[in-house]
C-alpha cells in the first residue's frame, strides 16, 4: 500500500507541474497586456516599456517561466501589479480563512447528505424520498448568491437572529471566535453541495441495498439500523469519495459567491479581481492554489478510498 501511495503522490506532483505550465502559457497567450490593464488604455509606449522592464515582461516566455518556478519554490510569487503587496502575503491572509469556511461547510454538507442519501435509498419511491428529491433539485438549481441573499433577508434582516456579515477578523482564530457570524456563510455553501452529495449517496446506497450481502445481514437477524450502519454506509461511501475528491473546484467557485455576498475577502474575490485587472502574479499563484487543491483533493480521496476498501488496500501492494 505504501508503494501505491508513493506512486500516487508522485503522479500528483507531475500533475501540479502540468497545471503550472498550462496556466502560465494560457495567461501569457491571452490577448491584452498586463501593462495596458494596469496603466490604462491611454498609457504611452514608454510607460508600458518601463512597466514591462520593471516586471520582467520583456524577457522570453521560457525565462519568465523559469523565474516563476524558481520563485514559487521559495514561496515568492512576486508583487501584485494592482495591490502592490507581495502575492504570498495576500494568499497567506486569505487562504486559511477560506480553508475554514470551505472545510466547515463541506463537513456540514457531508454530515447531512450521507444519512439523507441512505434514508432516501431505504425509503425509495415513497413520500419521504420524493420530498427530499424535490428539495435537492430546488437547492441544485437555485443560484448560490440568491440563496445567500435569501438567508440574509430572513435571518438577519427579518428576524435579527444572525449577523449578515461573515466574521471580519484576519486570523483563523479570530474567525472561529465569532461562530454566530459564521453560520450563514457556512450554511449557504453547505446547502449548495448538499444537493449533489446526497444524490450521489442515494444512488450509491440503492446499489448497495440490492446486494446479496445486505440480505445475508438481515437473515442473520440484525436490526435494520445495524444493517445500514455496518453493512450499507461504508460500502455506499466508496463511490461517493471519488466524486468528493473531484468536487474541489466546484466548492472553490461556490466560495467566490459566498465571499461577495457575506463580505468575506478570501481567495475567490482575490482571484476575481485579479482576473479583471490582468494581475498576472496573483492569477498565476491562485490558479496554482486551486490546481493544488484539486490534485490534493483527489489524492486525499484516493487515500481515503484505499483505507476504506480492503480490496484495494491489499491489491495495490
Amino acid at each position, binding site marked *: 500500500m505504501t508503494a501505491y501511495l508513493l506512486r500516487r503522490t508522485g503522479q500528483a506532483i507531475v500533475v501540479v507541474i502540468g497545471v503550472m505550465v498550462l496556466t502560465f502559457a494560457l495567461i501569457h497567450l491571452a490577448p491584452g497586456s498586463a501593462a495596458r490593464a494596469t496603466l490604462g488604455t491611454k498609457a504611452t509606449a514608454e510607460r508600458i516599456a518601463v512597466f514591462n522592464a520593471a516586471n520582467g515582461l520583456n524577457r522570453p516566455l521560457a525565462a519568465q517561466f523559469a523565474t516563476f518556478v524558481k520563485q514559487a519554490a521559495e514561496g515568492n510569487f512576486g508583487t501584485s501589479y494592482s495591490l502592490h503587496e507581495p502575492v504570498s502575503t495576500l494568499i497567506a491572509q486569505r487562504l486559511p480563512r477560506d480553508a475554514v469556511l470551505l472545510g466547515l461547510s463541506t463537513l456540514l454538507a457531508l454530515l447531512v447528505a450521507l444519512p439523507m442519501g441512505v434514508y432516501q435509498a431505504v425509503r425509495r419511491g415513497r413520500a419521504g424520498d420524493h420530498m427530499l428529491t424535490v428539495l435537492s433539485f430546488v437547492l441544485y438549481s437555485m443560484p448560490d448568491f440568491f440563496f445567500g441573499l435569501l438567508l440574509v433577508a430572513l435571518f438577519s434582516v427579518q428576524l435579527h437572529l444572525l449577523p449578515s456579515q461573515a466574521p471580519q477578523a484576519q486570523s483563523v482564530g479570530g474567525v472561529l471566535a465569532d461562530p454566530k457570524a459564521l453560520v450563514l456563510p457556512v450554511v449557504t455553501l453547505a446547502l449548495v453541495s448538499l444537493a449533489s452529495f446526497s444524490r450521489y449517496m442515494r444512488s450509491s446506497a440503492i446499489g448497495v441495498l440490492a446486494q446479496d*450481502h445486505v*440480505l445475508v445481514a438481515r*437473515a442473520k437477524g*440484525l436490526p435494520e439500523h445495524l444493517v445500514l450502519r455496518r*453493512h450499507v454506509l461504508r460500502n455506499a461511501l466508496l463511490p461517493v469519495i471519488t466524486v468528493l475528491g473531484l468536487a474541489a473546484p466546484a466548492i472553490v467557485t461556490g466560495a467566490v459567491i459566498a465571499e461577495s455576498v457575506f463580505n468575506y475577502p478570501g481567495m475567490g474575490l482575490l482571484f476575481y479581481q485579479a482576473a479583471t485587472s490582468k494581475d498576472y502574479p496573483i492569477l498565476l499563484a491562485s490558479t496554482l492554489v486551486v490546481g493544488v487543491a484539486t490534485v490534493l483533493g483527489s489524492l486525499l480521496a484516493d487515500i481515503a478510498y484505499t483505507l476504506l476498501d480492503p480490496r484495494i488496500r*491489499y491489491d495495490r501492494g
Partner: protein
Amino acid sequence: MPPLLDVRNLTTHIRTGRGTVRAVQDVSFTLEAGETLGLVGESGCGKSMTGLSLLGLLPPGGTLVEGSSVRLDGRELVGLPDRELRTVRGNDIAMVFQDPMTSLDPTKTIGHQVAEPVLLHRGVSRAAARERAVEVLGLVGLPQPRRRLSDYPHQLSGGQRQRALIAMALANEPRVLIADEPTTALDVTIQAQILALLADLRARLGMAMILITHDMGVTAGNTDRVNVMYAGRIAESTGTDRLFSRMRHPYTQRLLASVPRLTQDPALLLPTIPGLPPDLADPPTGCRFADRCPYATARCRAEEPQLDGTAEHRFACWHPVDGPAPAEIGGKVADAVAGAATGGGEGAAATTGLAEGPAAAGTVVRPRAPEPAAAAAPLLEARGLVREYPLRGSWLPGRDRRVVHAVSDVSFTLARGETFGLVGESGCGKTTLGRLLVGLDRPDAGAVTLEGTDIGTLRGGELRRRRRDLQMVFQDPFSSLDPRMRVSAVLREPLRIQGIGTAREQRARVAELMAEVGLPERGLDLFPHEFSGGQRQRVGLARALALTPKVIVADEPVSALDVSVRAQVLNLMKRLQAAHGLSYVVISHDLAVVRHLADRIGVMYLGRLVEVGTAAEVHRRPAHPYTAGLLAAVPVPDPAQERAKRGAGIGGELPDPAAPPSGCRFRTRCPLAQERCAREEPALRSFGPGHTAACHFPLVAPAADSPSDVAAGRP
C-alpha cells in the same frame, strides 16, 4: 408432537410497477428434524421467495397474504413483530445464499462477519464470539481458521467463501437451514465437497434442511423429499426415490427428461419443454403449466388442479403420467435437420410471444466426423500453444516477474464437422484457449493453423477474410453488445464490416439467419433485453453463423440457461452443425453438456491438456485421475447412483496458476500421487487410438505397455 416446521397456505404477493406478482401461491409442507427437503423448479418459479418468506424477509412491496402460516415447533411466525422475528433469524432458522462472491460484505473481515450473529443472539463477549467463529470455521473445513479471521472476503476463493457463509449460518446451531442454490456458482468438484459438508453437518447437528436448487442431479443425491415448484405453486411433492422413478406430474417428467446426461445417446435430441413459464403478474386461469404441457385438455385450461393424492405423494394434475418419459421422445438429430427449412415452431413463449424451438420432420443425414484417415489434414490445429499473463505490478523494479500460466503447451486438432469439447474447473485456462483459437488473443508461443495457414502470421485483409471462418459464441452474447442496437443491426454488423453483399442482400441474409435459429422475423425489430436467455443465445448463434464460418468456438454456450431452455439450445446447436457441416469447439465446465455435444473431449487442468480422447472413451475408460474425479463429481439425476458415490470426487482446490506445483500440476489433489509425480512432469502417452493422457500412474494401462488395452481395469 407438531412437526419441526409446518408451513401452510404460504402465499406471497409482491406489488410492483407492472402489477401484483403472485410469487408464492398456497404452498404447504412440513419438515422434520434431520430431514432434507428439496425445492426444485425452473428460474422464477418461487423457490427463493418461499425460503425468504419463511424468514419474513420479503422484498419491498412484498406481503404474506392472509391465511399464510409458518409454525416452528408449534410457534406461529407469521405476524410476529419484527423484533421477535429477528430472534428467529440467524438463530433458529438460518439461510445460505447462492453467490458466495456477493454474499459477504467486502469491507468487513471474515471474523467479524462470522462472529456477528453469535454476538447478536447469544449475548456473549466479543472474545467468546471470536472463539466460536474459529470453531465453526474449522467445522466447515476452512484451513487455518484462526488466521482467516482477519482476512477479507476477496482474499478467499469461491469455495472458501461458501464455507465461510455456511459457517456464518451454522454459528448458532440453527434447527432449520435454508440453503438457496448453495453450490450453483461453484465448480463441480467444489460443489461435491460443499454438498458432502452440508450432509455431514446436518447429520452431526441434527438440523433440518431445505435445499433449493434447479439441478436435478443435486436433488437426487442430497434430499429425502422433494417439492417440485412451478409458477409459484407446488406441482408435485413426494419422496426423492419415488419422484425420480414414479413421478406423476407432466412437468416433473419433462423437466427430468430435458437434463443432458453422461449416458445419453448423442444421436438423439434432448426432449424439451417448449415455451417459458407464465408471467406471475398475470397467471393463466386453470393449470399454470397448460401452455407447455403435452397432455393438456380443455379442462386443464379452465379449472386449476389442486395438490392432491396420498400423504406421501401429492401432485396437482388432472391427467397424471405414470413414470418417466421414454428417451427417444425428443427425436433424432438427423430427423431435425430438414425441419428448419420448413420452419414452424412449437408452443408460444411468454415474455415476447416469440416461438421457441424448431419443429422436427425430415431426413437429412448429419455428416459424421470423418474417419481417422481424413484426420491427417485437420481443419483447425493448435500446436504447442502457450499464453502467460504477467501479474499486475510485476514490471516494477525489485519484484519478481511473476506470470499466470493460463495456457501451457496445448496441442490438439479439430476435423471438419467434428465437435471438440474442452472441460475443466474455472480458472484452468479454457476461455483463454478459446480466445487464442479464434485469434482474439495471440499466443506467446505455438501456433493455431486453419486449413494449414498459421492465423498468427496473417495481416490486414487476409486476416479479416480468415476471421470469417472462425467465430465465437459467448455465455451471454449480449453482455458485450450495445443494448440500443436492434437485433437486425446486430446480425447485419458482421456482414457490413466484411463488406458482404448489398443492403438488400444483407437484409435477406439476416431474415434467413433468424429462420435458421428458430426465431420469427418479427424478432428483428426487438432489442436485446426484450429476449429471454434462450432466445438471446439463439441470436448469438445466428450472429456467429452470419459469415458462414467453418469453426465456431462456443464458450459456456448454455451455462446461463435453465434446464428446459438449455435442452432447446443444445438441440439447435446439433441441428445447425448437421445442416452446415460446422465444426465446434465447445468449452464448458459441465461434463454432461460436453458429453452430449462432443465427438472428442479434452480435459484441462491448470493450463495443461491432461487427457484427450473420444467422448465415449474418456467417459468409459478415463486414464487420468483428474478426469475420473471430474466424472465422479458430476451429479446425475438418479438417487441410487448419487447416494452410492457420496464423498467421491476431488478434494482441495485449484492451486495458484502463478505458482503451479512442480512435476505433475495435479499432484496436490491427486489421490494416486507419489514421489515421482513431484519430480517429473508426466508426458502425454497413448491409451489407444486418439486417446492420450499425461500421468505417471494412469488408471488404465497405456497402449504401448499392454497389447490389449480393452482388458485394462476400470477405476
